[in-house]
């Protein structure tokens, strides 16, 4: 099933400038992540699909069904859209038990059929014997699984998830993400998930739409969005970190040389490259290698090698983020590159003590904005 969204929604604020959402998006099976800062319009898009917010104009269709069409004056109520919606703060009915919460959307069934379906869901979502508990008696992760069960039991055609993991602790989050991936394989419906967490987006997405200030900057597979961002903003949001401006100084058969204020790098040639043209390019921190002293480098790695110093570092579990200062006369910035190094490499090369190092910018991983 294909979901087509093309909507405009204006919000009037008394003091702030008006916020306008302009979203145009095509969604098919699999998991689509709407990714961006809070207040960028991704959540509003989700609520427009569910029918909880009415767009000012545009059209939303799901397969053959028209959810909203401002020209034909169609606005299907949320009750008949058959979407499952999961909120950030669980949003379980506090006056009902877990089982009653799950059964809430099962309206026209006999008591027996209801309990069969509820039991099925309780099993699927690993809720064991929590059926008689009230929401406040169970943990956050369990509550969110109940919310998922409550949405799934009604057999929705689309599953909408609004920051479903952000209120959860990391281990619980990881488990729930696995649950969600399982659901994705089992139910085969389009899932749309809103998040501001880039790791979550990368981990879950088949397709990513990057939002900024009410607009969709880029839609693509996760590799497109994360490794070949369309512009500086997308690169920044997806954590590309190393973004530079430079001028093309040399063109060859298969590669070009671009000089920035600090250094010059070689990158794969693009058709539209012209000598002297100014370009912006980026490289993700994980595509910059620390070169082991004395090691022979493959062709892809040996061309953009720079010497310098690690000036700062932060450890994020399995990886270190190093602030790297290239050795030049320029002292404009505190650091020039952010390099991500797996923890075992960091330890092996003893980077804690060996602060002077060589880095290599993987040629193929350098991405130029068009």
């Amino acid at each position: 099933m294909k979901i087509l969204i093309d909507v405009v929604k204006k919000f009037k604020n008394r003091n702030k400038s008006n916020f306008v959402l302009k979203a145009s998006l095509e969604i098919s099976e699999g998991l689509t992540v709407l990714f961006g800062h809070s207040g960028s319009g991704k959540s509003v898009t989700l609520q427009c699909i569910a029918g909880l917010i009415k767009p000012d104009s545009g059209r939303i269709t799901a397969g053959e069904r028209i959810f909203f069409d401002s020209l034909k004056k169609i606005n299907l109520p949320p009750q008949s859209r058959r979407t499952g919606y999961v909120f950030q703060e669980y949003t379980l009915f506090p006056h009902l038990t877990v089982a009653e919460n799950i059964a809430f959307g099962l309206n026209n069934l006999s008591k027996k059929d209801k309990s069969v379906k509820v039991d099925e869901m309780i099993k699927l979502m690993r809720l064991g014997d929590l059926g008689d508990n009230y929401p406040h008696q169970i943990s956050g992760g369990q509550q969110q699984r109940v919310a998922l069960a409550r949405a799934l039991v009604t057999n929705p055609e689309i599953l909408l998830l609004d920051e479903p993991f952000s209120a959860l602790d990391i281990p619980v989050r990881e488990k729930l993400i696995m649950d969600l991936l399982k659901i994705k394989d089992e139910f085969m419906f389009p899932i749309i998930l809103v998040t501001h967490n880039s790791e979550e987006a990368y981990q879950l997405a088949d397709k990513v739409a990057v939002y900024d200030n009410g607009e969709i900057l880029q839609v693509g597979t996760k590799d497109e969005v994360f490794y070949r961002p369309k512009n500086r903003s997308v690169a920044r949001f997806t954590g590309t970190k190393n973004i530079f401006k430079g001028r093309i100084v040399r063109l060859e058969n298969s590669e070009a040389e671009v000089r920035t204020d600090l250094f010059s790098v070689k990158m794969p040639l693009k058709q539209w490259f012209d000598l002297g043209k100014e370009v912006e390019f980026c490289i993700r921190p994980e595509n910059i290698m620390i070169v082991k002293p004395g090691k022979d480098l493959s062709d892809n790695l040996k061309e953009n090698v720079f010497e310098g110093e690690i000036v700062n570092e932060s450890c994020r579990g399995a990886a270190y983020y190093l602030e790297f200062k290239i050795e030049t006369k320029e002292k404009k910035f505190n650091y020039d590159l952010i390099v991500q190094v797996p923890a075992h490499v960091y330890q092996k090369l003893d980077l804690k003590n060996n602060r002077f190092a060589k880095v290599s910018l993987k040629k193929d991983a350098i991405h130029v904005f068009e």
Partner: protein
Amino acid sequence: MNFLKEIDWFPFWLSLKVAGIATVISLICGLTISYVLAKYDFWGKDWLDAIVTLPIVLPPTVLGYYLLVLMGRKSFIGLMVKRIFGTDLVFTWRAAVIAACLVSIPLLIKSSRAAIENVDVNLEKAARTLGLSETKILFKVTLPLAWRGILAGVLLAFGRALGDFGATLMVAGNIPGKTQTMPIAIYDAVQSGNYVMANVLTILVSLVAVLIMVVGTKLSKAKFSYQEFK
């Protein structure tokens, strides 16, 4: 306890009847108004809000005078009632009910509107995506989660209705055995030097008021208790 026998209990029973009926009417009208105020945005909402809370600040005599003008014997409403029911509205216990409604409804609206607004809108949104009609959502989500605040409002409204003096006096008068409610009877008793009557009724009214305030505050303060649903 011999002195109790000398007391005329009519004002007490009349007050209970008037306040009871007035509270039921206030509940039906007030709950509707508070739901509309809590859930909908429309032109003139601020004005409606101001008008329904006005009785809190207006002197009861002013309210009473309004009512008198509005439903007096020569007014349109008065004439209609006379034609249909063959009786006057003013200076009957029914007028006291209307006066009690008017002074008590703002308290009910204030309390139940807050309670309805306090229900997480996302719960109602969730119910909507689960396919429940708006009426079902009202009865299965909103009211079950707001009933404490509504009940607190009902109690306050009842207390206020029970204690009204000014508005009732203006439209229902002070006819012993017909329209004389407790507060008016107390005034009357003090004026005529019947201090036994005044003391007993005063203590009675005070006890009811204290009880209402204690229970009402408890209801509006207490966190949502899940145990009660078991």
